[in-house]
């Protein structure tokens, strides 16, 4: 069942490329000018529409979606290519969710032009029906490759991945979710099937790197940053499914000052970033795309001084 959805999405992606792709690619390569891409991201926003109360014991007056919207809008003005992504648990945590069932969260995310999100466990808190009810308020796709909804009323409502194209650069984004059993009430996920995220991620990477010819592969993960146990996490995902450039993580509410670099078995390096929860921070990673040198297997890290003018 999932296989069929997968193929359908691929076909759509290919059609989109035929219509819009080649001209852009040619002009970008012809000019040989580096292409800039800014990834902005959130995770575990937990219905934190307003900033934490001024008198709160922790995070007083931090966060707030209207502030985030203003910052995102400014970055969009400064940068030519921006993707705004979320790694799940949009819902649950303030009365806005209790009273309006997630309607406002999706509307505001649409207003600030989120490009994609994945599903966290709390996004099932009102069951599959509650999720279905709010989907029309989300003007962005939910990407989830390892949940099989084919036996549920939400069949066909999500896609495993989406390819974005910015000035000829192809960015493949896919999503993976955490195991539902024991975490989400059975009746809230119904007949949704959980598939091994590492096996699914391998397929996704192969497809995005192969048929979809992506220059950058991003995974939106709600697995969690790192567990001491055997439970799958972003570190195990990075090592187990080599070829992901960036994992935007969630679930564990981990604040990272700088992304973690995970070295894969074949020398591939994956960045893992996560920005806590509740929209207290906005994640940002800037990429510059140069024409490939042709060298393969190069892994190098360097420090350089950089200031605002160098980035804008």
């Amino acid at each position, binding site marked *: 069942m999932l296989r069929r959805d997968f193929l359908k999405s691929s076909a759509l992606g290919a059609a989109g490329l035929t219509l819009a792709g080649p001209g852009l*690619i040619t002009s970008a390569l012809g000019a040989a000018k580096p292409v800039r891409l800014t990834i902005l991201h959130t995770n575990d926003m937990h219905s934190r529409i307003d900033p934490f109360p001024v008198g709160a014991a922790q995070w007083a007056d931090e966060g707030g979606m209207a502030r985030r919207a203003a910052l995102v809008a400014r970055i969009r003005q400064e940068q030519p290519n921006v993707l705004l992504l979320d790694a799940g648990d949009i819902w649950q945590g303030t009365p806005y969710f209790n009273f309006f069932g997630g309607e406002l969260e999706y509307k505001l995310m649409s207003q600030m032009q989120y490009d994609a999100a994945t599903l966290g466990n709390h996004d099932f808190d009102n069951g599959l029906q509650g999720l279905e009810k709010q989907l029309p308020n989300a003007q962005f796709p939910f990407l989830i490759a390892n949940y099989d909804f084919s036996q549920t009323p939400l069949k066909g409502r999500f896609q495993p991945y989406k390819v974005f194209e910015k000035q000829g650069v192809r960015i493949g984004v896919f999503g993976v979710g955490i195991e539902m059993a024991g975490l989400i009430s059975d009746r809230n996920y119904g007949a949704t099937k959980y598939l091994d995220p590492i096996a699914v991620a391998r397929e996704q990477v192969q497809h995005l790197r192969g048929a979809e*010819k992506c220059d950058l592969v991003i995974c939106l993960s709600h697995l969690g940053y790192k567990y001491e146990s055997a439970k799958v996490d972003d570190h195990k995902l990075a090592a187990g499914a080599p070829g992901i*450039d960036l994992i935007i993580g969630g679930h564990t509410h981990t604040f990272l000052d700088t992304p973690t670099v995970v070295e894969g078995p074949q020398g591939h390096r994956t960045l893992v970033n996560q920005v806590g929860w509740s929209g*207290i921070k*906005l994640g*940002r990673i800037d990429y510059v795309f140069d024409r*490939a040198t042709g060298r393969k297997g190069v*892994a190098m890290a360097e420090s*350089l001084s950089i200031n605002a003018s160098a980035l804008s």
Partner: protein
Amino acid sequence: MSRFRFRGAALALLLAATAACQRGALQPTAQLTNTAQPMTAAQPADPKVEAVVAPYRLKVKQQMDEVIGHAPEAIRKNPGESPLANFAGDIQRERAARELGQGIDLGVMTNGGLRAELPAGNITTGSIFELMPFENELVVLDAPASVVQQLFNFAAPIHMAVSGATYTATPDGKPTDIRIGKEPFDPAKDRTYSIAISDYLASGGDKLEFFRPLPPRHTNVLLRTAFSDYVRQLTKEGKPVTAKAEGRVHF
């Protein structure tokens, strides 16, 4: 405004491409300047987003401020038998009985599961949200006598009360003279006892591990809804909201 945006040295990573995973024509370099940008009052809010939020915020405030009852005295929680846990456990038992159309033997709520006390004076919807911010559902467990014994073994050392029962805690923290609905409890008896409890505690939360194997029966009623409905009902009948520790645990 840009003070936190691009500071000092930044790390750039030239990401590796390998033969095993072919890259496209373009090679990305990551610039990791300020990868977790703080969202504080230094960042002005977008007025267009504020305008969308405003009517929702007003509705939330109006609903949270709605007075649904009155408590002559604060309903407090404390170690041991607490007025607040009695309040919760009794409501759970009563509501579950109504939902399932049968008598319910026991109601269980731990002090840890209740997040705030109810204030003296007006009780608002907001007070109930503070008491129970989680979306916990009221469920019923059918527990064999052996599990009920484990419940009292858990309760006795901390003098925790169980709605629908009384018992005596010995100085070394053992339960004796357990009575359920005034009937003496016999752990060897072959019967089950119905327990009204939150789905969180039923799944082993707050160290109530012994409940975990029991399949819950759903009421589809949130605990918070059960509490606020109860307070509204009292108000409708012209009654104040009260609860007390009344000697359910002897020691």
